[in-house]
């Protein structure tokens, strides 16, 4: 099963790679970066290597053919690790702090430190934070309008864990997949969005 997925993916990726017109410049760009960059702090050189998903998004200008996108989204979805205890709602107050915090994973951050979710950088969320970005959609009253069902909780958990499972070349980082946020942190963010007591839903 695993193997066949990989080969389907490889074939698709190859097809895109072959049809891409800027391949030569891209190859030169990658070679140049490999030469000119250096590891610093926790940011090692392997970060310059595309993973499979990045490769497909890069070569398709973030617009992969539908069958490829669906296939790869399925892979991403299947790789999401949901909480073993089956609970998705953490503490919305902690969630708000995580949403506010923008540090983590840069070369100036330390290994092992608690990372932030940078959520406000891109989304409107709570009512009291007027300094929010607009790269992502507004999440105001997210739970109020969408409900708090177990399915919704699982969806939100999954979306934060790996946004690419739902939209392959989304701008949103894969916070769980990349090891940026812990299970508990993601639960807290789910609570921020869905807990009826969270100011987001007031």
């Amino acid at each position, binding site marked *: 099963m695993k193997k066949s997925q990989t080969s389907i993916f490889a074939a698709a990726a190859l097809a895109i790679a072959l049809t891409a017109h800027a391949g030569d410049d891209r190859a030169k760009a990658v070679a140049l970066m490999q030469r000119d960059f250096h590891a610093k702090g926790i940011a090692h050189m392997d970060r310059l290597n595309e993973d499979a998903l990045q490769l497909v998004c890069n070569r398709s200008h973030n617009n992969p053919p539908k069958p490829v996108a669906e296939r790869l989204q399925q892979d991403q979805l299947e790789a999401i690790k949901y909480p073993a205890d089956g609970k998705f709602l953490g503490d919305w107050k902690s969630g708000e702090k995580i949403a506010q915090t923008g540090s983590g994973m840069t070369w100036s951050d330390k290994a092992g430190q608690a990372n932030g979710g940078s959520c406000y950088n891109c989304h409107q969320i709570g009512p009291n934070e007027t*300094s929010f970005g607009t790269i992502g959609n507004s999440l105001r009253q997210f739970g109020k309008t969408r409900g708090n069902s177990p399915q919704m909780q699982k969806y939100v958990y999954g979306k934060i864990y790996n946004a690419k499972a739902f939209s392959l070349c989304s701008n949103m980082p894969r916070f769980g997949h990349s090891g940026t946020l812990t299970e508990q942190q993601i639960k807290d963010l789910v609570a921020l969005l869905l807990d009826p007591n969270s100011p987001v839903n007031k």
Partner: protein
Amino acid sequence: MDQTRRNALKAGGGASLYALLAAAGVLRPDTALAADWNQKAFEAKNLKDAFDALGAGSRIDSADIVMTAPEIAENGAVVPVGAVSKIPGTESIAILIAKNPTSLAANFDIPSGTEPAVSTRVKLAETSDVYVLVKAQGKYYVTKKEIKVTIGGCGG
């Protein structure tokens, strides 16, 4: 400034000696004023103490003071503030920031011949009311405006 003279002024008990020297023509009044940095006012930890230390215990709200400042500061570290006084006989213009660790930011003496208008840039520790205090013919006039301090771009 001449440090010796300043010390002499302090040692000599301030106002009386100053008046004496000024009367004798040793000091020009405006230069002497410049030497007198009001420590008590500048170190005051809240607005009331700062006003009191400036001698502005009672103040008149005035529409004749025009403050130019942003509603929302792009960055609290550099906030442009301009103040113009249309009050006749304006002698000094001060800028105070309510929520800063020390409230008094600046005090400008306006000699005759200089327009009662100054611009500078201040730091705001957080969203705060900013006051412009004008002294004219022995009375104090004031206006205020809230300036918001925001969080900008960047992830950390």
